[in-house]
C-alpha cells in the first residue's frame, strides 16, 4: 500500500517586479563580454578546450585559458532553449518551465544530520536522504528534490546512492549537486533512463538534472565540466551555478560580484551549446558574502539572488535562484530570516526555479523540523504573490447587504463555506487547549513525524529497483 503524493503548489505571481533597469543589465552584459574577451576563464579540461577551439573561441592550450568574443557568446547562446520541461516520475510532477510560475526545491547537499528519531548530531547517511525525500514528497511547497545530505555510509559512490534514495522515495524531479565526474554522470544517466523507461521518454521528460558549480574566480572544474558535457549529450538538463564570495573570490562590491559570477556561468553555458546545440541548460547565480574578520561564508541580501533571475533571462535561459538557506545553527528567529524575501523577489522577477529549503548552518546541517518550517514560509510567499480573487462571490455584496450595519457574519452560509475554502497553517496559529497558540517548531516536529509515519509514496517497480541496484553495483566496481 502506498499513499498519494499531494500535488505541488508552485508560486504563481499575479504581479511583477524589476530590480535592475535595462541600462544596468546592459552594463552587466558588457562587463561579461569584456571579462570573457580580455581575461578569459581557466578551463582545465582537454575535452572542453577542444570544443571551445573548434567553435571560434581563442584558446591558449598551454595555460588552459579560453577567451570568447561577444559574437561567439551570442552565437552559442542563441541555440539554448528558453524553456523546456523537467520531468517528474509521473506527468503530474513535471515542471514546465514555460509556465509563469516558480518551482522550488529542497537544499543540498549537507554533511551532518540531526537524526529524525534519536535527535543525535552525526555524519549524514543514505537513510537521511530517503527520509528527507519522503518528507519532501509530501510537502506541496517542494516541487523538486535535491538530495539533502551526502550518503557518507556509501563512500564508493555516494552521489549515486543519494540518487537511488531520492528516486525510490519521491515522485518529484531530482536535481543533484554532487554528480561532478564524467564516470559518475554516466551511471546517473543510466539511473534516469530506468526511471523514465526509455531513452525517448528520458529526453522528453528528464527526471534528473545536474547542477555544476563554476570555480570563482573565473574558472571551471575539470571533472565537473566533463560530467556536464556527458549529461547534456544525453538530454539531461545542466545548470551552472556561480558562487563568487564577495571580498574573497570576488571584488568587495555587489556589482563586481555579479560581473565575476555571470562571466563564469556564461562561459560554461556557451561550451554546452557549442558541443550540443539546443541542450537544456540553466543559469544560477548564488554568491556569498565573506565576513571581513573571520572569512566565514554567509548569504547576501535577498535582492542579489533575484538579480540572478534577471541576468539569466537577459541571456535567454531559465534560472535557478538561491532562495532559502542561511548560517543559523538551529531553528528559530535566525533560521527564518531572508528565505521568504529572496523567494518572493525571485518569483516576482519571473524566476523558474529556486532552491534552498530545509538545511541549516550554511547548507551543511539537516535538521528534522527545518523543511516543514521553510515550507511554511514558502506558502506565505505563494499566497502573497497570488492573484486576488475579486469575483462577485468573493466581493460578497449580497451577504454584506443582508447582515447590514452591526450584526455579524458567523451564522452566514457564505462565511461557513468560505472558511472551509481558506488555507490554514498546520504550524502557525494552531490553538492550544488554554487558548494560546502552540509552538510552531513543536508543530513542525509533529508534522514531520506524522509524514514519516504515514506517507509512503508509490514505490518504483521491482524491476526498476533491481536495475538501480545493479547500476549501483557496477558503479561501485568501476569507481572504487
Amino acid at each position, binding site marked *: 500500500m502506498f499513499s498519494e503524493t499531494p500535488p505541488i503548489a508552485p508560486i504563481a505571481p499575479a504581479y511583477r517586479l524589476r530590480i535592475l533597469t535595462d541600462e544596468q543589465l546592459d552594463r552587466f552584459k558588457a562587463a561579461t563580454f569584456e571579462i570573457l574577451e580580455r581575461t578569459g576563464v581557466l578551463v582545465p579540461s582537454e575535452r572542453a578546450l577542444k570544443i571551445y577551439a573548434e567553435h571560434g573561441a581563442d584558446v591558449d592550450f598551454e595555460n588552459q585559458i579560453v577567451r570568447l568574443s561577444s559574437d561567439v557568446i551570442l552565437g552559442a547562446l542563441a541555440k539554448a532553449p528558453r524553456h523546456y520541461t523537467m520531468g517528474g516520475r509521473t506527468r503530474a510532477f513535471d515542471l514546465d518551465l514555460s509556465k509563469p510560475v516558480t518551482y522550488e526545491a529542497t537544499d543540498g547537499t549537507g*554533511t*551532518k544530520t540531526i537524526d529524525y528519531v534519536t535527535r543525535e548530531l552525526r*555524519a*549524514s547517511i543514505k537513510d537521511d536522504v530517503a527520509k528527507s525525500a519522503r518528507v519532501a514528497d509530501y510537502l506541496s511547497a517542494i516541487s523538486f528534490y535535491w538530495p539533502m545530505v*551526502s550518503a*557518507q555510509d556509501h*563512500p564508493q559512490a*555516494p552521489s549515486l546512492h543519494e540518487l537511488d534514495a531520492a528516486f525510490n522515495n519521491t515522485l518529484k524531479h531530482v536535481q543533484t549537486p554532487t554528480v561532478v565526474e564524467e564516470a559518475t554522470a554516466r551511471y546517473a544517466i543510466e539511473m534516469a533512463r530506468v526511471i523514465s523507461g526509455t531513452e525517448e521518454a528520458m529526453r522528453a521528460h528528464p527526471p534528473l538534472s545536474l547542477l555544476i558549480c563554476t*570555480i570563482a574566480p573565473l574558472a571551471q*572544474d575539470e571533472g565537473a565540466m566533463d560530467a556536464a558535457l556527458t549529461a547534456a549529450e544525453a538530454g539531461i538538463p545542466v545548470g551552472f551555478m556561480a558562487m563568487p*564570495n564577495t*571580498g*574573497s*573570490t570576488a571584488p568587495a562590491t555587489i556589482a563586481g560580484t555579479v560581473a565575476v559570477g555571470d562571466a563564469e556561468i556564461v562561459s560554461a553555458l556557451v561550451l554546452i551549446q557549442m558541443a550540443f546545440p539546443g541542450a537544456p541548460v540553466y543559469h544560477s547565480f548564488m554568491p556569498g558574502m*565573506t565576513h*571581513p*574578520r*573571520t*572569512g*566565514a*561564508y554567509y548569504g547576501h541580501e535577498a535582492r542579489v539572488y533575484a538579480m540572478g533571475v534577471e541576468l539569466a533571462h537577459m541571456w535567454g535561459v531559465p534560472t535557478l535562484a538561491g532562495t532559502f538557506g542561511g548560517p543559523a545553527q538551529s531553528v528559530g528567529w535566525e533560521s527564518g530570516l531572508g528565505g521568504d524575501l529572496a523567494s518572493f523577489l525571485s518569483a516576482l522577477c519571473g524566476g523558474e526555479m529556486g532552491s534552498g529549503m530545509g538545511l541549516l548552518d*550554511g547548507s*551543511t546541517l539537516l535538521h528534522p523540523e527545518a523543511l516543514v518550517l521553510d515550507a511554511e514560509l514558502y506558502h506565505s510567499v505563494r499566497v502573497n504573490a497570488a492573484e486576488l480573487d475579486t469575483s462577485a462571490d468573493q466581493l460578497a455584496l449580497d451577504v454584506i447587504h443582508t447582515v447590514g450595519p452591526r450584526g455579524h457574519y458567523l451564522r452566514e452560509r457564505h462565511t461557513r463555506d468560505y472558511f472551509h475554502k481558506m488555507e490554514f497553517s498546520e504550524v502557525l496559529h494552531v490553538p492550544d487547549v488554554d487558548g494560546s497558540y502552540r509552538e510552531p517548531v513543536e508543530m513542525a516536529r509533529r508534522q514531520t513525524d506524522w509524514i514519516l509515519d504515514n506517507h509512503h509514496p508509490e514505490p518504483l517497480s521491482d524491476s526498476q529497483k533491481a536495475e538501480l541496484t545493479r547500476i549501483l553495483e557496477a558503479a561501485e566496481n568501476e569507481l572504487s
Partner: protein
Amino acid sequence: MSDADYFERLARTVLDGDEEEAESVAKAAVADGLDALECINRGLTEGMNRVGELFASGDYFLPELIMGADAMKAALAVLEPALLDTQQREVLGRVVLGTVEGDVHDIGKTLVGTLLTADGFEVTDIGFDQPASEFVAAVKETNADLVGASALLTTTMRVQAQIIEELKAAGLRDSVKVMVGGAPTAQAWADSIGADGHAVDAIGAVALARLLVDAPPSPEYDD
C-alpha cells in the same frame, strides 16, 4: 636616518601593506649597513604584531592582514640573504599547508595560512587539489614541523588520512605534527585517522599550531 627610524619605517610598510615600499626600505637599510636580524625583529615583526593587534581589536580586516604579510615577505626576501651565518630569523614553526586532491575549496585554507603567517609561522602554501605525495614532498623540502590539510568535501576527506599514511611510509611521521580542518571534518574524524589536531576556524588553527609546536598561546586571540 637613525636605526630606530628604519625600524619604524619598516614596521609602517607592514601596517600599510605596501610591498614595494617594504622592499625599497629594506634595501636602503641593508645598504646603510643596518643589522638585518634587527631590521626583521624590531621592524617587520613589530609591524606584524601591530597588524595582529589591530585585527584582533576589529580595526583591521582580512585584506590588511594579507597585505601586511605580503609586505613583510617582500622585505624578508631582501633581509634574509643579508643575515650573518650565525644568525637565523626566529619563526614559531614551519608549516606546509594545502587543500587536498579533488578539492578546490581554498578560501578557508588561505585564511588559515594568513593567520598563521601573521602569528609568526613560516607557511608554505602548496595550493589546492594537491595529492598526498605533494604534501610529503613539501615537508621534505621545507623541513616542516607541521602539516595542515584542508578538505571541504566528504569525498575528499580521506586524502587527509592518506597524507598521514604517506608521511609514515616516508619515515616522517615522527618529525611532523598533522592538523586537519574543513567543514565536514571534526575532532572525532581527526582522532580516527591519527591526526594530531583539528580546528573549526582559522583562529582555532593558530591556537592549535602553537600548542603543537609547544609555543605559548598567542597574546592577541587570548580571550
